[in-house]
């Protein structure tokens, strides 16, 4: 049975209290958290060492302006943190971070991950100017009841991995009726227990039974996932529906810029479009009589599926930033999960597990040896 502590302040205030005391006691050197910028300048991930600067921290604000896994990768790409750093990230951000470590794009040393049971996030557009206050009240109300809130990222409504995997502390939120009074923190690792011991935030207790609401959200999400999958039907042999869906794409490639798994500095598909010279056009025109210019719009998405779907954590960043409203994340989640199932792989489940295409088993997959 794992230990939990209860902090007598709710939600954001509770997390701020936890982070502040970790900083003040020197348990960690810095914390990474979402923070409001001055004068309505939006919300962004910030690395904070000054406890006073935590006053503007909003660790549980239900938006994801950038993918925390990607942010942590940027911070640790060249060398690991030399002193302990705590980061509050959502479960899909933590899983993306693990995938990036596997791709040698990040170091996890000295990193203490704190992650909530995630009720989902609102689309990132909500950050700019819109105070969201009413919605946030409703959001926490439905979280305490174990229901999904309205207006979330569509892909969040079908997320069954909303409980953190492989983190140091889990912020227990879902289904808790005392959500507006206290913050319950489960200590998942020995390191977390040792750290919290000296903070003076009360004694660690044995973890209680899961609240009913947690089970309720689990089944709501399972149903949500089934609904999302049913909505998207690409079956066929001529890729017609897929081409139609992605035909709207304006090739801004924002989906790959915000994708935590797409870490390549120079994208293969951008190089390829740039390389389409006269021979390319002539060949296309001979065959089709007309060709989209520049080429490779739909191809880009198929290529991205082939490159990264095996590690897709379905965070939904891509869909948030799509200017022409293609349900990118829902599609990538569906295709990604199908690819992952072939190898019984769950991205971010375990840092020691190899990416499926980097490893093999001798006796397997005979169905493709035709």
């Amino acid at each position, binding site marked *: 049975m794992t230990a939990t502590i209860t902090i007598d302040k709710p939600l954001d205030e509770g997390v701020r209290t936890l982070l502040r005391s970790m900083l003040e006691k020197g348990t960690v050197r810095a914390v990474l958290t979402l923070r409001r910028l001055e004068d309505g300048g939006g919300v962004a991930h910030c690395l904070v060492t000054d406890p006073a600067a935590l006053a503007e921290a909003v660790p549980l604000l239900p938006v994801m302006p950038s993918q925390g896994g990607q942010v942590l990768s940027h911070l640790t790409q060249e060398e690991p943190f030399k002193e302990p750093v705590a980061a509050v990230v959502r479960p899909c951000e933590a899983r993306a971070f693990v995938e990036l470590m596997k791709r040698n794009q990040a170091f996890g040393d000295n990193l203490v991950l704190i992650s909530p049971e995630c009720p989902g996030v609102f689309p990132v557009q909500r950050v700019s100017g819109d105070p969201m206050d009413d919605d946030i009240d409703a959001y926490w109300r439905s979280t305490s009841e174990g229901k999904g809130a309205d207006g979330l990222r569509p892909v969040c409504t079908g997320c069954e991995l909303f409980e953190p995997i492989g983190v140091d502390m889990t912020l227990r939120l879902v289904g808790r009726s005392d959500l507006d009074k206290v913050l319950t923190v489960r200590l998942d690792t020995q390191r977390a227990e040792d750290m919290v011991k000296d903070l003076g935030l009360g004694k660690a207790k044995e973890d209680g039974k899961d609240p009913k609401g947690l089970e309720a959200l689990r089944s709501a999400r399972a149903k949500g996932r089934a609904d999302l999958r049913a909505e998207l039907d*690409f*079956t*066929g*042999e*001529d*890729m*017609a*529906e*897929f*081409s139609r869906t992605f*035909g709207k794409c304006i090739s801004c490639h924002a989906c790959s810029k915000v994708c935590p798994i797409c870490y390549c500095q120079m994208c*293969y598909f951008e190089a390829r479009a740039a390389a389409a010279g006269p021979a390319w056009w002539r*060949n296309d025109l001979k*065959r*089709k009589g*007309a*060709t*989209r210019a520049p*080429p*490779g*719009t*739909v*191809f880009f998405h*198929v*290529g991205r*599926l*082939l*490159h990264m*779907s*095996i590690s897709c954590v379905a965070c939904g960043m891509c869909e948030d930033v799509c200017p022409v409203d293609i349900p990118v994340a829902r599609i990538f989640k*569906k*295709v990604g999960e*199908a*690819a992952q199932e*072939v*190898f019984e792989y769950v991205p971010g489940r375990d840092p020691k597990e190899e990416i*499926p*295409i980097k*490893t*093999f*088993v*001798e006796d*397997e*997959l005979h*169905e*493709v*040896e*035709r």
Partner: protein
Amino acid sequence: MADKKKKEAGYEPKILSFCCNWCSYAGADLAGVSRLQMPANFRTIRVMCSSRVNPVYVFTALERGADGVIVTGCHPGDCHYARGNYFTRRRQALLEKVLEEIGFDRERVMLRWISASEGPEFASTMEEFDATIRSKGKNPLSEEVFL
């Protein structure tokens, strides 16, 4: 429509084969020097290992007008580089799953193990794959303007 019919009457599939330098490429050579009959509609790209073939290359060929793509490599356990073909198999599984999910006929791609001594197997594989593709007809992507 009439035009399209006319095109299909004289339809000759375009097939791309990726051959491993150490096995199937020699197998193809053996089939050739043994004067075995096989369809003449495949183009071969020699690679140093079947695992050199990125699934993206296969889809590129399909998008650029190939009707079918076959990847051939050494039998499991016989890879010149000890384990390259095991990776090929995983890639093929990934490719076929993604194709299936996006609604493209996965039977237009194929993976087959052919050793350097298997000239007849190379010829019969090409016969078989040609027949499969011929029965399916033209790759619908080859005339798709908006890809």
